[in-house]
């Protein structure tokens, strides 16, 4: 949450205190960015400072909000057995980005180099969390 302009530790505390009243499920940055403009305005952030709120909305518009979906299946079959070759089909969708655009370079005040973002896909046994099956890095192309 501190990545967002104007946010301070106190401001974040104030926001988190309002979660229950505004029926916001959690205090994560993703949830905050997915709130509607009207919902965020209702939170009375920055003591009602409109300039700061406008700056915040500008940044939220270009935040990389991601939806991740996956299909795990065996080609041509409906059931999976232990001897099958399993295909993992993982899709990442940038919700804010029109289909004819691709994500640009990352912006960070503390990282003054030109770089594209990367995503890591880690396939892990969810039950034990010890058996890491595969780590893949998705590079921007």
């Amino acid at each position: 949450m501190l990545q967002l302009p104007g946010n301070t530790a106190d401001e974040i505390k104030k926001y988190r205190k309002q979660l229950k009243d505004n029926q916001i499920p959690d205090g994560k940055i993703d949830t905050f960015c997915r709130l509607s403009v009207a919902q965020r305005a209702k939170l009375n952030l920055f003591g009602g400072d409109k300039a700061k709120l406008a700056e915040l909305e500008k940044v939220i518009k270009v935040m990389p909000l991601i939806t991740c979906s996956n299909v795990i299946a065996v080609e041509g079959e409906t059931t999976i057995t232990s001897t099958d070759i399993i295909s993992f089909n993982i899709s990442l969708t940038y919700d804010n980005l029109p289909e004819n655009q691709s994500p640009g370079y990352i912006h960070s005040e503390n990282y003054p180099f030109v770089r594209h973002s990367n995503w890591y896909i880690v396939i892990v046994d969810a039950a034990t969390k010890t058996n890491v099956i595969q780590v893949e890095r998705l590079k921007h192309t």
Partner: protein
Amino acid sequence: MLLENKRHYGARLNENLLIKNIPMILASCKEFQLIGAKGKDEVLLLKKLKDNDELDDLLPKIQSRNMKDMNMKPLLLILAHVLKDENIRNPIFKEGLAEILSTGVHHLNMMIDVAMEINTIARQGHSAKKLGWTAIQAIV
């Protein structure tokens, strides 16, 4: 250099890896250890960085065999940058910090590669050492 760094990471990565251990492992790689203090002024400024209590808490307290002769400058630069210490903006640190920031990402990628190699060796039954999700997550 590449093999030496891989060996270095291979020895230090383990299943108990925490996020706070990463700067220390990163700072002790071969390239970053060559970033030395160039004069008394810089040494004094590095001591100033150490005065930051938050930063001092993250410095290793136990002198192990591995870090007996370690150059502390890269570690101080990384921690000061992460903690946004104001003294890190001094132009004297610009060159060293730029090198760490520009190549640090590649080193972290190398750590992930090494972690996967460790897991592959474990799967083949040649080693008992295995890295779980928490260790990989700490690096990512």
